[in-house]
């Protein structure tokens, strides 16, 4: 009898071309996404005078540097214009399809891939961006790589990897109303730590994960990297197949049915062993916000920030002091007493249609006490939101409705949080200076960002949802 396998083992085996005695495996890459930041790698190809090996499996997007305001045809900032032009030239030169600024399908790479049906169950997906783990939501083995590896994949369509230890994170039970995938994943990271899954490939399992939509699973897998994981995935199921059916690049008709039959076996066998297990009950998860400068600094909204004076461990106390000082928060302060200056809804973590609907459900008929920006994950999502009237809700609340891109998550397209300003944000990293030098970021779900906007301070969204359809 064959040894029971995890989904991770199955995906690995399908892509292994060479397995060396030293533990290195050469893996086949099914999809490779490139963006403006991939210029280092294209430069390496130019140095060697070689072409992209599999342009048909390589797709480009313009997302990191694209403006969300003002003209996108004629970008005012010459440095941003140069970055966008560079990815246009690099992809054109190698015959790689680009979802550029003139394409209605443009958007954030980790939104566009699933949306276009380019990311499928059973695929191995790489991109020179750490949040490539997002694509695991569809049952793909997806991970971020550095520029040298991007160049290697462009040249050979393969990548060297060592098989990672396997970790299963099981979330059983049912999440309470108002609790989103973002709350689940922040709760996980708060428990296991920012390095709790380092080097591991994660399978997310359990009834609370099954209950998530594909959008929710994308949020969950997106943040795997914030626990240090190589990749995170959810086994494909009927929810996945229903999401993929009819997507432009997904198989069609009979080919789709055949693919579904194969994808259906992509699950962990009963009794398969993981190297590490972590369990959480969804019913214990409250809306979560971060207070510090690492995603592991996350607490339920009714909590207070730590007090370094009460921390027995010196190193930990010193970390807490530094984080609180940077964040401008007094020790022991209640989270709900922290006023915000600005909100941001967007990024590869939370910019899909469900995210926008969740925020709009809170904001409808209400005003934001602070300025803010909403940037849909793709131009198609932006259009859909406008058809649903969500843009009106955001604008009426006083928020800005921008174009699609990475925007204020990484702050390199000109969308910045000012030094010392505090931003309630649906993004993935509350690192020092992430949203701009001196910026203070609190991570939370789209509904919680909307609640912070309405209250003017960090706030529990649940009372605001009373009597509303969500």
């Amino acid at each position, binding site marked *: 009898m064959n040894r029971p396998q995890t989904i991770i083992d199955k995906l690995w085996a399908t892509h292994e071309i*060479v397995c060396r005695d030293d533990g290195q495996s050469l893996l086949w890459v099914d999809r490779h996404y490139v963006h403006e930041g991939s210029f280092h790698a294209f430069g390496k190809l130019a140095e060697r005078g070689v072409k992209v090996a599999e342009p048909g499996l390589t797709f480009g997007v313009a997302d990191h540097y694209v403006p969300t305001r003002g003209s996108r045809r004629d970008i005012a900032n010459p440095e941003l214009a140069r970055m966008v032009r560079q990815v246009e030239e690099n992809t054109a030169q190698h015959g790689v399809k680009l979802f550029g600024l003139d394409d209605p399908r443009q958007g954030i790479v980790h939104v566009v891939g699933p949306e276009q049906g380019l990311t499928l169950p059973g695929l191995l997906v790489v991109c020179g961006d750490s949040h490539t783990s997002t694509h695991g939501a569809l049952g793909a083995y997806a991970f971020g790589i*550095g520029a040298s590896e991007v160049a290697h994949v462009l040249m050979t369509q393969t990548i060297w990897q*060592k098989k990672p230890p396997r970790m299963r994170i099981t979330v059983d039970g049912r999440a309470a109303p108002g609790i989103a995938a973002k709350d689940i994943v922040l709760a996980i990271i708060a428990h296991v730590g920012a390095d709790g899954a380092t080097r591991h490939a994660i399978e997310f399992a359990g009834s609370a994960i099954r209950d998530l939509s594909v959008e929710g699973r994308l949020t969950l897998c997106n943040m795997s990297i914030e626990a240090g994981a190589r990749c995170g995935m959810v086994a494909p199921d009927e929810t996945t197949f229903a999401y993929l059916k009819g997507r*432009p690049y997904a198989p069609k008709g009979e080919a789709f049915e055949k693919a579904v039959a194969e994808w259906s076996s992509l699950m962990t066998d009963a009794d398969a062993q993981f190297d590490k297990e972590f369990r959480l009950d969804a019913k214990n998860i409250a809306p979560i916000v971060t207070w510090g400068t690492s995603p592991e600094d996350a607490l339920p909204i009714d909590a207070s920030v730590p007090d370094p004076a009460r921390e027995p461990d010196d190193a930990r106390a010193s970390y807490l002091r530094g984080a609180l000082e940077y964040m401008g928060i007094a020790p022991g302060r209640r989270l709900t007493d922290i006023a915000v200056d600005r909100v941001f809804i967007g990024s590869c973590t939370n910019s899909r249609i469900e995210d926008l609907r969740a925020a709009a459900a809170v904001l409808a008929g209400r005003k934001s006490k602070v300025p803010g920006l909403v940037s849909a994950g793709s131009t198609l999502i932006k259009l859909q939101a406008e058809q649903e009237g969500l843009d009106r809700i955001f604008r009426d609340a006083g928020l800005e409705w921008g174009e699609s891109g990475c925007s204020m998550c990484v702050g390199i397209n000109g969308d910045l949080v000012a030094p010392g300003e505090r931003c309630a944000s649906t993004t993935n990293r509350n690192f020092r200076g992430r949203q701009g030098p001196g910026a203070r970021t609190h991570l939370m779900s789209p509904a919680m960002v909307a609640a912070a906007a309405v209250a003017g301070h960090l706030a529990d969204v649940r009372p605001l949802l009373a009597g509303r359809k969500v």
Partner: protein
Amino acid sequence: MDKFTKLTGAACPIDQPNLNTDQILPARYLKWTRAMGIGKVLFQDLRFDADGKERPDFPINRPAWRSAKIVVGARNFGCGSSREAAVYALYDYGVRCVIAPSYGDIFSGNAIQNGLLTAIVTDEEAAEITAALNRTPDLPVTVDLEEQTIVCGNRTYKFSIDPVRRMRLLNGWDDIALTESYRDRIAAFKESDRAERPWAVPSAYS
């Protein structure tokens, strides 16, 4: 890629857990090419305040550690963004080795691609080395990859590193040459895989 065998030099302790690649190289420098001098902006926002004035308390600004070849970090060094330019910044500043209890996965992979050694010690050992350097800032540290040892004052520590990565650094090997030697295997895989997983190729967009 340059080989790494043995190195003696100043070692700068930066005792911050989860020191992410945004701190090593802030995102606004990601559009820089390496030739623009990316080493100059290593740890930019930790080294300088908002007015561009040096922060004297940041370790690498202290005279003994200004030309450090080694950085001693805390757990999860280099977590976060996949930006390989964080490694370029360290390397081009002159750093050839980081010593820490654990690393961001993508960062340590990028380091190997560029000849930067990421040596793994225990939390206690990293804390001990950091304490020794804080007591005697100009204490030279020797890192020997052949022996997998770190000599710091009168103490010698064993460090760990993945054996494949160790061989690559010792020999200055680059991936592409190795991959090229498997060209036939790749072609054969592609052919059989196309037959077995026809759905894995993107359907034509119509």
